[in-house]
């Protein structure tokens, strides 16, 4: 029972005035420590909604969410910020780097919010940027990099704090096959090093790289939670 993620009966309803959108209807997910899980499903099925809840960016309307044994749904917003900072590394389809900061500063950002001092965080960011092969670009702004390079910076930022889980919402969605493969091999390495990874993808070939795949259709898990 060493689940790092345990989601029980989670529901997410968006209240759009008179219309209510049920983005997630009673979802149960269990993910073990060190697993590499892919999430697949048609557009609008609720994959991103689930990822946001897993990433503590949003709270479920109903249900329980345990992360590392901690009941997240009961936590205050302030505490959620700390969880996002130290336990979660989130990677977005659109990279979401800060355009005004150098990539080095972008990677330092989570460390700054965790209160690490300047010298230490410089050292740590340098180490991580080296591991994704971008240390020679550290002074560049994100707009001066290719899409694949930007996503590598985003991965560096996600893992710089040694998070408990890495969440990636269509990380290769905006990339060509070759840079997508670069990203996937980084994930493979991270997985081998013992990291837990949850990744959303539309591409079955990409999903094959994972240990197992969860299918979501219309806000529900289609074929059970453990493959």
């Amino acid at each position, binding site marked *: 029972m060493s689940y790092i993620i345990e989601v029980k009966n989670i529901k997410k309803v968006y209240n759009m005035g008179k219309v209510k959108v049920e983005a997630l209807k009673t979802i149960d997910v269990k993910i073990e420590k060190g697993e590499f899980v892919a999430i697949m499903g048609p557009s609008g099925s609720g994959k991103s909604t689930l990822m946001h809840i897993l990433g503590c*960016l949003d709270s479920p309307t109903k249900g329980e969410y345990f992360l590392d044994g901690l009941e997240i749904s009961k936590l205050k917003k*302030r505490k959620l*910020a700390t969880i*996002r900072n130290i336990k979660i590394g989130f990677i*977005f389809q659109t990279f*979401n780097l800060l355009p005004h900061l150098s990539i080095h500063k972008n990677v330092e*950002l989570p460390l700054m*919010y*965790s*209160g690490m001092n300047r010298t230490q965080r410089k050292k740590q960011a340098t180490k991580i940027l080296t591991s994704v092969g971008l240390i020679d670009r550290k002074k560049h702004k994100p707009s001066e990099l290719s899409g694949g390079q930007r996503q590598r910076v985003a991965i560096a930022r996600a893992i710089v704090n040694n998070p408990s889980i890495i969440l990636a919402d269509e990380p290769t969605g905006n990339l060509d096959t070759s840079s997508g493969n670069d990203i996937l091999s980084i994930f493979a390495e991270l997985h081998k090093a013992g990291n837990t990874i949850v990744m959303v993808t539309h591409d079955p070939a990409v999903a094959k790289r994972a240990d197992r795949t969860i299918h979501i259709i219309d806000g529900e898990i289609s074929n059970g939670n453990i493959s």
Partner: protein
Amino acid sequence: MAISLKESIVVGFSDFWSRKIRSIVTIIGIVLGTMSVIVVLSLMNGVNQKTIQWMLERGGLNKISIYQNWEYQSKTGQRKYFTYRELKLIHSLIPEVKYFNPTIRRGFRISYGKKEYWTSVRGVYPDFSPIEEWGVQKGRFVSNFDINQSSDIIVIGTKVAEELFGNLDPLGKMVTVHNRRLQVAGVMEHRFMKNSVSIGNDNNNALSYLNRRAFIPLSTMINKITNQDKINGLALKTSTPEEAILLKDKLEGILSNLRRREPVFIIESAQEEAEKAKKNTKIFQIIFFIISLISLLVGGIVIINIMLATIQERTREIGIRLAVGARRRDIFIQFLVQTVIITLLGGIIGVTIGVSILGFISNFLKMELIASFGTIILSVAVSAGIGLIFGIIPAIHASNLNPVEALRHE
């Protein structure tokens, strides 16, 4: 586990620099507001100090003056002047007074040869000189001997000397006043107030009227010129301003007894007048300060708008910061610090420009402007305060954004 205030300030500063043009445009409003605050405060400061200086030049704060109250009509025919005997009585009742000078003032024509000059001639005691802190530049002033003997002498102001004698030495010359021949015994020091509101020449100086006066012994005035025992005024001086205020109360009692409690005289203490003048300028100071504050408030409202627009534009950035672990407080401080930097910088620039154009405004208005350390600090503090107050609303707005919605923002 928190971003330090120092770190927030660093982030706020780098925000500021990465958006130079917008920051500078925002600053201008605050610069103008602060400039007007510092100029107004300095103006008031100048007026205040001018008033005090004028008081000091006119004999200091230990002085008490008694005038006739022209606005008051006595029903029982109380006299608006003193007799010589009454003055002797008053003097004996206030032995604590340091200097005592009764005055008769009359307008006369003074003539020397073919030249003549109309002016106010005053019959005085020797104490006039220490009371007004004004002496002669040559010859001598009225002496006790002159009072005892009703000497036929006159001491003239520099303007009188210039008009009657030109380049000649006035000392020892005989002039005629009201058919009496008087010998010029002295010429008074030239009076001129520094930094005064004077347009063009000397004649408009705040103290130049004094140079047009002439002085003779009080006894000479009574016995040989007017032949009337009517003394219009009295000036006194004590050792300290506090004594002057006490003496003023005592004199009010004495005069009220002498004139059946009718206010035919006005008693003024320089100390009280100075306080009154200060109080008057204080009111203006407050009014002008409020006007400048309003212009700063307008600057503040501009800031709110610009900051809200900035935050709207940076919603996605806020979402990213929240996603990697920024707390609401971190976002709040980041934006508040940015606003305070803008207003503080605006304040400092405004004060610098304001102080450096004081001389120009001073020339233009013909008034003295004095920027004290206190005014400078107050102006900068006010502008930073505006930043704090008006920075709060946009900062709260930024820190309340929902992470998912902020990230979805285009």
